Each structure stands twice: as C-alpha cells, then as structure tokens.
C-alpha cells in the first residue's frame, strides 16, 4: 500500500511505523544526529548553538548587575526566555510571543528552579545590595520538532561556557568595581538533559519527533533527568493517556540519552579549550 505524504500524512507515517522505522530512515528509538557549538556568539558572556537534525537553537547569556529580590536578599536571578520567531517556521506569526513560546519559557524556568542547575546564592555578590542577573535568551532558528530538548542542551552548554567578571564593592565609595581581567566560570551543580517522545495512535512510542511527527502524534512527553538519575521534570501537556510501562520506558531511554549528551558537551568543551 502506498500513501501520499501530503494527502494522507497520518496513513503515510503509520505505514512506516508498522515496519518499525520512520520516514527519515530512523528506527523508533533513534535520536537525530546532535551537533553542538559552544561559544558561537563573541559578544555574549556565554553562548552555545545546538542542532538536532534540522532543529537549530541558539542561546546567549548576558550577565547584568542588579539589586537582589527583596524576599530573598541572598539570591540572584536567572531569567530564561524562549523565542520562536516567524523565521523558524510558518506556524509562528510575527507579534508578541505565542502560547507555545511562553509555555516553553515557563518550562525552562521550572527546570532551572527544580534541578538547581546553579545555586542562586552563588549569584549574590553582597547580601541585599548587589547580585548577578543571568538573562538566558534562547532563540529557535529552524523549527523541526523537539525544541524543548534543544533548548535545555543549549542552555546547559551556554551556562558551562559563561564567564563572569570579579566584582568587589569598594567600602569607601560604596560603589561596585568590576575587574574585567579576572573572570570565573559559573559553578554548575546539576546537568539536566531532556528527552522528548511522541505517542502515535495511543500505542507506538517514538523518540525525538520531528515537527511533522509532533503535529500528527496523539501525545508528546518530555522527561528531564540529571546525572544522579533524578527526574527534574516529567512534562506531558495532555493528549492520549499513558500506561505505566510506557512511562518507565520513557525514563529508561532518558537516562541513556543523558549519558550521550553529557559526553557530547564534555567533548565540545574540551575541544574549544584546546583551540584557545
């Protein structure tokens, strides 16, 4: 039986899934090739760009000085923002950020808080006087599904690349003095890595869905694990129901994926250091 992709996309995909493969030649449990570039933006304090198949996401981190929040005077801020511009796909219109971009920003903020990737206390310079604000701007350049995974990888790599200058407060003038010569890396406590899954027809579980697969799937799941195999998020915005076995399968696969991505980040960091 032969189905035309544009006329009957769901039937077209089903005919592949029946044979345990996918239209792009992958197996059901296979991720697309992931490439990473760290330090791509020279003007940012830290940056990284990741490609998962065609999906391209870039993250730049800007550190600014500010007064700490009044309800937590010994903490700094981390402000993530996900942008899905009209450039990356025809599904996004120009104008204020849509629901998907806002939900993604909230998801990233929850992962940062939940995993304690950076201790917010480390960003405080002087209690209730001065702290760092890390603006993490994540932008999608090419939308081909699975942006959440790409966002988390690029955020983690960019944070590992970030260097902030030493700041001291002059006791006499009470002003901050920034020492550009002495920069230090941020202390990264946890390495959360996410893995996304799509469920077809309530039964078939595939990893790393493309945009086409995401729109045809009955449900999309994102699991975030850290190096201690603790879950930082298990996000399933809705869709068809999920049995306990499927859920366990997702988590096992996420743990394997964490190892792979962890190795990739370390390798790229190593090579950027060597090239310097």
């Amino acid at each position, binding site marked *: 039986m032969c189905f035309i992709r544009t006329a009957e996309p769901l039937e077209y995909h089903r005919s592949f899934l029946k044979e345990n493969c996918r239209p792009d030649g992958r197996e059901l449990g296979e991720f697309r090739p992931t490439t990473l570039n760290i330090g791509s933006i020279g003007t940012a304090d830290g940056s990284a760009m990741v490609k998962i198949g065609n999906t391209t996401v870039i993250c730049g981190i800007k550190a600014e000085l500010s007064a700490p929040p009044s309800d937590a005077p010994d903490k700094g801020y981390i402000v993530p923002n996900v942008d899905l511009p009209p450039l990356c796909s025809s599904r996004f219109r120009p104008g204020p950020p849509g629901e998907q971009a806002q939900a993604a920003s909230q998801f990233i903020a929850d992962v940062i808080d939940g995993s304690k990737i950076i201790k917010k206390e480390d960003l405080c310079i002087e209690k209730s006087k001065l702290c760092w604000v890390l603006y993490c701007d994540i932008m999608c350049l090419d939308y081909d599904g699975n942006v959440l995974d790409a966002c988390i990888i690029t955020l983690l790599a960019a944070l590992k690349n970030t260097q902030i200058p030493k700041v001291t407060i002059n006791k006499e003038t009470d002003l901050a003095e920034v020492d550009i010569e002495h920069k230090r890396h941020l202390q990264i406590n946890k390495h959360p890595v996410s893995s996304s899954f799509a469920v077809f027809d309530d039964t078939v579980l595939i990893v790393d869905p493309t945009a086409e697969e995401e729109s045809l799937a009955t449900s999309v799941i994102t699991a975030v694990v850290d190096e201690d195999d603790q*879950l930082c998020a298990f996000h399933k915005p*809705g*869709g*068809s129901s999920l049995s306990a076995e499927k859920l366990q399968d997702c988590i096992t696969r996420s743990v394997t994926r964490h190892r792979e991505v962890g190795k990739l980040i370390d390798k790229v960091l190593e090579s950027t250091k060597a090239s310097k």
Partner: protein
Amino acid sequence: MDQIETGSGSVLREYGSEQNLLSKPDGSATFLQGDTSVLAGVYGPAEVKVNKEIYDRATLEVVVQPKVGMSSVRERAREQCVRETCEAVLLSTLHPRSSLTLILQVVHDDGSLLSCCLNAACMALMDAGLPMGRLFCGVTCAIDSDSQIITDPTAQQERESRALMTFAIDSKERNVLMSSTKGSFSVKELQQCIALSQKASEKIFQFYRDSVKRRYSKIL
C-alpha cells in the same frame, strides 16, 4: 462536603461544586478544593474566526484569568495543560469548523490550583453538554522534605515541598492524561505519586457522580 479519605492515610480537602450558576455561558461550574476556588464558563459550539478554523474538528480555546493582575507566562503554561487535556477527551470531530471557549476564573488560590482548574473545566464541559469520550480529574501531589507524599496540598504545604506534581487522570482506564511537575524527584517517587493520584481520582469521580446526581434529582 466532607474530607475525602484516599485510603492510604493521605486525604483530599473538602470538595464542593455547583453547576449552571451563570446565565450567559452554555455551561458553567465552580469547583472548590478547601480554600482554592475556580469558576469556569464554556461557550460553544459557536462560530470560529477564519484564521483559527480547523476543517475537521472544533477549535478549543482556554483562558485562565488570575485573581489579581494580568495573566502572565505561568497562566499560559496552565492554559496549555488544560487545553490539551480537554482536547484529548472532547469528541471535537463532531463539531468541525466551530469554536469552543473555556474560561477559568481563579477566585482564590490556596494550593493545588492546576488540579482545581482541571476539575472545574470538566464540570463546566459536562454542564455544557459537550460530547466527551470520558471524564478527567486533576490531582496534585507534593513531596515534602521528609519524602512524605501529600495529596491536594495547601499553598503553605506547596511552599515547603521539595517537589510538586499535578496529574490529570482519565475515568476509563485511570491512566495519566497530563503531567506537570516542579522540583526534582526519583522515578520511584513519580510512580508512587501516580499510584496515589489514581487512587484519589476514584474519590473525585465519585464526587462528580454524587454532585451531578444531586443536581438532577432536584429537577426531576
């Protein structure tokens, strides 16, 4: 409106619900979980804007209005969760090229807000008489610093918790329709929380049944 025992020591707070309070919407309901209260209204099936029209099913729009201030990124994330859960149970193919609008007004937030929104949404959809394949309910679990699991936590308990999870459970197979988590937790804890939520969902569905029965027994 009594405390609902879930069997394994943990309790749900006092639940209350009333349907058909508002005259303008096609369906409406309030849902109370302890001091948390949400008012929901459903409009539809109605005419849809051309740019939002889907040729083979109805377009569902969910709006979460906070008690004070403008709706922010947090509300958008909640809207997405509620919308996709409703889309999974609604038989929206029966109303192609039409719009369904669900408005959730937060009346008071004392913890477990997302699960209360889900419950209010389900009651309002029922009141509107929209075709649904099954029902759903929301359950929130918090894991405190001693690794104790609390179902249906208050705002105070949420603040003191290490992890917070909300699940939507369907009425047919008691499977997880939606999951939204905060904080870090182990796989075992996730499974315990899901099991506890499934147990608690039985009580909530029984509550749904009782309150709908009570309402229709008055009419007849």
